[in-house]
């Protein structure tokens, strides 16, 4: 007969490493924090330092025949050259504006669309939602590369949509089909981000809005709230804690997404993600600093937008319902 004492709470070593004791927690959280925090921190430190011209030869050790000599002593001095070069170049601001436009438009459309879908589901529960949920889950599983290729094949000027249109007699030549991908305005990239991020936002918020928020909205309606009042005063504040961080993730994705920008974008203007990768793969080490500077700029955009959004949300909460 086994004794309860075998189950270990009394043994001193395992007691110290119990999940509720400090050392137990450190031991359990340590590996995850080291891998994610440590590696990300190290990577981001290198990016910032290299953008300032420090340690540009990093990583070009013995294994790299082409870069070994150049790498060893290269770029040891601190300088703002990369930023000066970047901000001085005309192309940078064009790409910067284009990137902000694409990411901003795509995130706004995704958030508005996701709220519309969730709000509709809240007001009309149990309506053919299973199919929609399944389609969105399916969409979430498709790798970005595959989805980008699929959008190109469907919405390019000679794509399937154009062919179906031709069969219906809408167009005679590919050139008559509207330029939806590989267009100057980044519609193709926005299309990719919205079709991937709208389902992501819906799936991230749906559990919360379904179980906890729907009863509140029904109560508000019973108490005489108009639909718009219930949306503004009950639904949005209730889903915001899940929606706002998810929207920030979507925005960061849109800013730094490479695959759709390369495949569905044009060469001029290019998004900063595409420019950064080109500079990073340039054989000239000095150009590498430009790539890192672009990464830093993109990171700062996320930080600024994040701070603004979270502050605004907090204020909105504090102010309470306006009369």
């Amino acid at each position, binding site marked *: 007969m086994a004794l*309860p004492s075998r*189950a*270990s*709470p009394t043994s001193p070593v395992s007691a110290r490493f119990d*999940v*509720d004791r400090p050392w*137990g*927690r450190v*031991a359990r*959280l340590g*590996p*995850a*924090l080291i*891998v*994610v*925090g440590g*590696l*990300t921190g190290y*990577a*981001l430190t*290198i*990016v910032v330092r*290299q953008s300032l011209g420090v340690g540009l030869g*990093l990583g*070009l*050790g013995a*294994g790299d025949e082409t870069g070994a000599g150049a790498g060893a002593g290269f770029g040891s001095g601190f300088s703002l050259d990369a930023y000066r070069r970047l901000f001085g170049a005309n192309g940078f601001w064009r790409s910067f504006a284009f990137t902000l436009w694409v990411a901003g438009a795509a995130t706004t459309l995704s958030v508005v669309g996701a709220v519309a879908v969730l709000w509709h589901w809240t007001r009309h529960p149990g309506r*053919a939602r299973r199919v929609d*949920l399944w*389609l*969105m*889950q*399916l*969409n979430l*599983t*498709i*790798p970005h*590369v*595959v*989805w980008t*290729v*699929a959008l190109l*094949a469907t*919405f390019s000027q000679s794509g*399937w949509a*154009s*062919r179906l249109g031709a*069969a219906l007699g809408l167009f005679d030549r590919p050139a008559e089909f509207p330029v939806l991908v590989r267009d100057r305005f980044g519609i193709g990239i926005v299309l990719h981000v919205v*079709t991937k991020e709208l389902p992501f936002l819906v799936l991230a918020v749906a*559990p919360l809005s379904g179980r906890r928020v729907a009863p509140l909205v029904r109560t508000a309606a019973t108490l005489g709230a108009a639909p718009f009042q219930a949306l503004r005063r009950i639904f949005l504040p209730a889903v915001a804690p899940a929606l706002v961080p998810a929207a920030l993730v979507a925005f*960061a994705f849109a800013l*730094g997404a*490479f*695959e759709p920008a390369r495949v569905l974008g044009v060469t001029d203007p290019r998004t*900063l993600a595409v420019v*950064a*990768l080109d500079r990073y793969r340039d054989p000239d080490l000095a150009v590498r600093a430009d790539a*890192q500077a672009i*990464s830093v700029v993109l*990171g700062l955009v996320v930080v600024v937008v994040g701070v603004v959004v979270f502050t605004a949300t907090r204020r909105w909460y504090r102010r309470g319902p306006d009369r």
Partner: protein
Amino acid sequence: MTGRLAWRTATLIVLVAPLVTLVLQAFSTRWFYPDAWPDTLTTSGVRQIGFDSATLAALRTGLVVSGACTIVSCAVAWPAARVLSRPTFAWRGLVLLVLFVPTIVPAVGLAIGLDVALLQLDLAGGRPGVVLAHLVPTLPYTVAVLSAVFVRHDDRSREQAAVLGATPWQAFRMVTLRLVGPGLAVAALFTFLVSWSQYLVTLLVGGGQVITITVLVFSAVAGGNPTSIGVLAVIAALPPVLVLTIAGRTVARELAEPA
């Protein structure tokens, strides 16, 4: 009623049609404008490109890398998620913030940074390095899903098993794993999906040595042959779609809010 029809049409065009296009491309070799449907459907593209040695090698590499990443990610996330799910743990917000930093770093900067970091650590250019690099984007999701699972799972049932004389291993195998199993499967599924779809990190950290199917699809785009693009893209989409079809219901249940 018209609203629902419009919604259904829109979702079909935007979410389903692109996938159908890929399948049609994969099963046709000469599909010219303005034919709305390929002249003949053939499996010759699938047979040639799908069973090409490079494709099979890339498929194998992708499965090995993402499989290894899933196992390591779950093993590392499990203990962390247990701590995060404790109601008495005061640092939950801070730890989650640190773990979620990679999800708000623009992907291009993260990929470049990880590449230099792993080059510096002499880990780039091989599968272990790629697996390690994939952990950065996957772990936040693994931890998030697992801690949601642990919040619902009552740790006292394990203690009860212990009181009834179960060894720790027995308690783990016969109680904890039975309760947490479906949630663990969902966490593994998510991890696999995130890892499987990594392109930039694999390309840079792998340094051209680690070619997964996802990387292969992208290089096929440059080649421009619609059939090979279609075949490779369908192959790349197949494992995630298969897993979801099998596990879809468990996913929905496990991701629901605790009642």
